[in-house]
């Protein structure tokens, strides 16, 4: 069950050119949220901007009663958010949506993040590896794509969760020159045996075109694949029918039925 709650800002750091990490105190969210779920954040008290902003859970620490959000300033809502000082309270609604599903039959976890798409992958990786400590028989590989070196956020932190982190940038200023699907294809073709495919699962989050390409790769290679989608939202709780995504069984709501969907369910156009 989700709740609407005012949470104290415990930490708020700039971690990239327009990127921030926000730590919030919430025993409820920290104990109930699942990787892939999100919170709907009220960025201001006046009516402009009016709507909440959906942000994924980047880290979920039940022990400390803390959650972390990782976000990029792209417009007015996130701009206002970035100005909020430590100590102030933030009005959150969450945890919302259906997160990633961890299938115990899968041993190889490939996580592909494009841009800010890496945000929910940290929580996921920590969940799979038991919050930081590696779990025997479970391999986590993280593939990150970004525009350039500066916008490659969180790599070091992800390495704390798995030593298998590969990066690509559009301009080659860090990691491989190329996009995250290049890394994925390369990995599947040269670092994973075809016999491991049934034991593997791909989780991806990022721009729509990237997700479409990942879905296509997964389909071709017959690998299970879960995608975290984005859509403009109003309510965030399935009430307004504002955030549809086309699936094989008609429109589903990204906020409620997702944001994580099985790639096989989705209809691209």
């Amino acid at each position: 069950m989700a709740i609407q709650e005012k949470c104290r800002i415990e930490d708020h750091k700039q971690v990239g050119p327009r990127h921030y990490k926000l730590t919030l105190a919430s025993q409820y969210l920290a104990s109930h949220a699942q990787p892939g779920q999100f919170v709907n954040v009220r960025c201001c008290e006046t009516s402009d901007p009016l709507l909440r902003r959906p942000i994924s859970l980047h880290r979920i620490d039940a022990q400390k009663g803390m959650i972390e959000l990782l976000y990029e300033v792209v417009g007015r809502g996130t701009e206002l958010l970035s100005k909020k000082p430590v100590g102030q309270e933030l009005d959150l609604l969450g945890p919302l949506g259906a997160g990633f599903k961890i299938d115990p039959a899968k041993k190889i976890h490939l996580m592909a993040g494009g841009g800010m798409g890496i945000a929910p992958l940290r929580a996921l990786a920590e969940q799979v590896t038991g919050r930081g400590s590696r779990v025997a028989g479970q391999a986590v590989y993280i593939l990150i794509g970004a525009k350039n070196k500066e916008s490659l956020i969180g790599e070091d932190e992800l390495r704390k969760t798995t030593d298998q982190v590969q990066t690509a940038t559009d301009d080659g200023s860090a990691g491989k020159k190329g996009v995250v699907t290049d890394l994925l294809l390369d990995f599947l073709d040269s670092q994973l045996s075809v016999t491991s495919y049934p034991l593997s699962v791909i989780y991806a989050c990022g721009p729509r075109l990237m997700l479409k390409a990942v879905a296509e790769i997964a389909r071709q290679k017959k690998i299970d694949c879960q995608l975290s989608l984005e859509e403009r939202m109003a309510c965030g709780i399935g009430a307004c029918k504002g955030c549809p995504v086309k699936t094989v069984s008609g429109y589903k709501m990204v906020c409620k039925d997702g944001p994580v969907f099985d790639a096989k369910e989705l209809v691209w156009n």
Partner: protein
Amino acid sequence: MELAGIELKNPVMVASGTFGWGREYADYLDLNKLGAIVTKSITLLPREGNPPPRIVETPSGMLNSIGLQNEGLDYFLKEDLPFLAKFATPLIVNIAGESAEEYAELAKRLSRETAVKGIEVNISCPNVKKGGMAFGVDAGLTKEVIAAVKKATSQPIIAKLTPNVTDITVIGQAAVDAGADALSAINTLVGMAIDIETGGSRLGTLTGGLSGPAIKPVAVRMVYELARAVNVPVIGIGGIMSGGDAAEFLLAGAQAVEVGTANFVDTAAPLRILAELNDHVHRHPRALNLS
């Protein structure tokens, strides 16, 4: 309190399409405490709705182009009504159709349900190609639809009006003449938002419906005009975010209000607004002074 034969628990209801089927908000507030629940518009057959994006934020408002996505009447009766019937709060079902016959059929079948206490007739949805607002901008068609609904049911009928008209009192009077027991106003203003990067609409459709605080001054004005023109109760809708906003509509002549977009911003909105309104009324027992 009583409004057009419906026993409201209090004057603060929730607006159609902004509160889902009640279920979605049940975790956040006690549905028993609402003035009434107004459902999202129901159509005879399931509707898939419009392509995404369906939401664009605008200054102090939002455009939506949902397009009446819903599972249709049968599904509603089977899946949603039993849940809603459990609450002590009166249920008002909002209906939309492409013809007067469809509206009548919806009304007829809904009035068989004892849980349904009133029918709000949406002749003002701007997001569908057929029906919807096409009725509500035309006094003749308004009469036709409302008269058909009136014949089909003995339930109280609320005609939900569109602000996209030159004179809302003409449409309001037509609805009353045809048998509407109350009027609700306003539905959304037709608006557009263009993506300046692509040159295309920022919605999946060309236009959408504008709601939220931005439209409140227009809504208050239209409620004021209606309340002075017709002799049935008027329900005020449009940009209500606080008890003060609700009070403004009551002072303009509304007997009750519906809270819409505010639900998206604050899941506790209707009950917060009710508490603020009660507090205000307490401090100002009688303040009505419009010339």
